[in-house]
């Protein structure tokens, strides 16, 4: 398995090849469409991430401190974003995730280029991922 830093670098590399924002959206839409199906019974209120315009669910499990996230959203671009996040962080240890600064998101322009409501949604996603991981540290 690649390291966390390698996984982040791969994402930054992918995004650096896309100049147009519409291309970045195409990329996120693809990620969203290909995200593993999320079990309907996990779509509970306690798994809903607050602060997003669309609905985003996140499920977090730990196997001896190694974290697996599953996620879904009713909006496809948001689903792409959460898919990108969990693909980077899945299989990492809880300690590694909780200690990460998520600054690679700035390098792909996800933070500053998305609209304020979306940027808030992203902040909520990141905070939820960290908080969920933290409880298994």
């Amino acid at each position: 398995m690649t390291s966390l830093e390698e996984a982040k670098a791969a994402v930054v590399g992918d995004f650096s090849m896309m100049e147009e924002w519409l291309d970045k959206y195409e990329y996120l839409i693809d990620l969203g469409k290909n995200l593993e199906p999320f079990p309907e019974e996990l779509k509970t209120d306690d798994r809903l991430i607050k602060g997003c315009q669309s609905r985003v669910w996140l499920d977090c499990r730990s196997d001896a401190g190694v974290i697996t996230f599953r996620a879904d959203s009713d909006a496809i671009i948001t689903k792409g974003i959460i898919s990108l996040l969990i693909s980077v962080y899945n299989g990492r240890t809880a300690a590694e995730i909780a200690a990460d600064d998520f600054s690679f998101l700035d390098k792909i322009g996800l933070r500053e280029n998305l609209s304020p409501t979306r940027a808030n949604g992203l902040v909520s996603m990141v905070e939820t991922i960290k908080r969920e991981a933290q409880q298994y540290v």
Partner: protein
Amino acid sequence: MSSIEELREQFPQLSTKVYGKPLVYLDNAATSLRPRSVIEKWDWMSARYSANLHRAVHFTSAKATEEFEAAREEVADFINANSPKEVVFTSGTTQAINLLAFCLGERKGFLNVGDEILIGEEEHHSNILPWQFLAERKNLKIKVLPVDERGALRLEELPRLISDRTRICAVAQVSNVLGLVNPVRQIADYCHSRGVLLVVDGAQGVVHCKTDVQAMGADFYAFSGHKLYAAPGTGVLWGKKALLDSLPPYMGGGEMVGTVKWEKSTYASVPHKFEAGTQNLAGVPTFGHAIAWVYKFRNYPELEGVKRYMLEALQDIPGLRLFGVPEAPEEKIPVFSFTVEGAHHEDLALILDKMGIAVRSGQMCAEPLMDRYGVTGMVRASFAPYNTQEEAEYFIKSLKKAIKMLK
């Protein structure tokens, strides 16, 4: 008559670019853009006439007061109020309705436990929550006047919903989601025949409909300046003079007093009774210029064509559902809310944004209406008279492209 290009030059924001593309501003129902005349007046009031109103004897205070009171006369004339005294300045529609709901609640002998308030199903949260607060405080019951599939209020339900306990009916002149012009006069007549006060939210209607509060038959009418090309943080509560006189004050503070004694204080007469504290000194005087633009725009028929084009073009898109479908185009203002099968409203708005188009997405502060239609949100494109046919066509083309990307 000057051309649409000359007219657009008067709105500086129209020439801005977003992501390197010309801004196509179709979120006018949220807030309109402001013309130079309004911006200059606003700036002038800040730069030259900063002084508090009605209080000091000095020259600048007198001038600022003059400007503020002139705006009251212009607004009164614009909505055909009986007198400028019927015009209360607020920070916007929201404050106007909150003020009214509070004061009606405190009006002696008006509301008793178990009394009812009837609210339109398509109301903005600003015309729901103040009444819910009031109902909770006074133990009242809220009833809902439903809309039909098309989005029209079901007036035939009025006799069933209005009882001897109904005191207040609150509806929009035009819903911010549906854009349909409600038959307010008819509702007013029925309400009055049953002794019910009618409160009309004019935030959207005042922009596009010729508004005559007396002919409309409302008892109270509220609207915002910022959707009407005036400065943000300005708004109006109009009420019939005798009704305003019958209400207690809202907030206590400077400006709204008669005499203040430890034993008992008295208050200024309307409208100043409701204008406690320092007012929006720079913003309110922009109403005159804003209203001048409303009159000017009435001579530009282009928007009517844009509206007809939008109604047809939207309904031609497969899987698109338009909410607020008029029987005739005259029944609708150029506000188009819709959903597209298989494409989430937020995704559509995000992609349109990157194409330079500003639209609204989500619940649009009308969650009960979203529930009624069983949707989590909609996309809304709302036009102003400075929007062109080319912009409408670009919007439709971009929307089709966005749908294709998502499917």
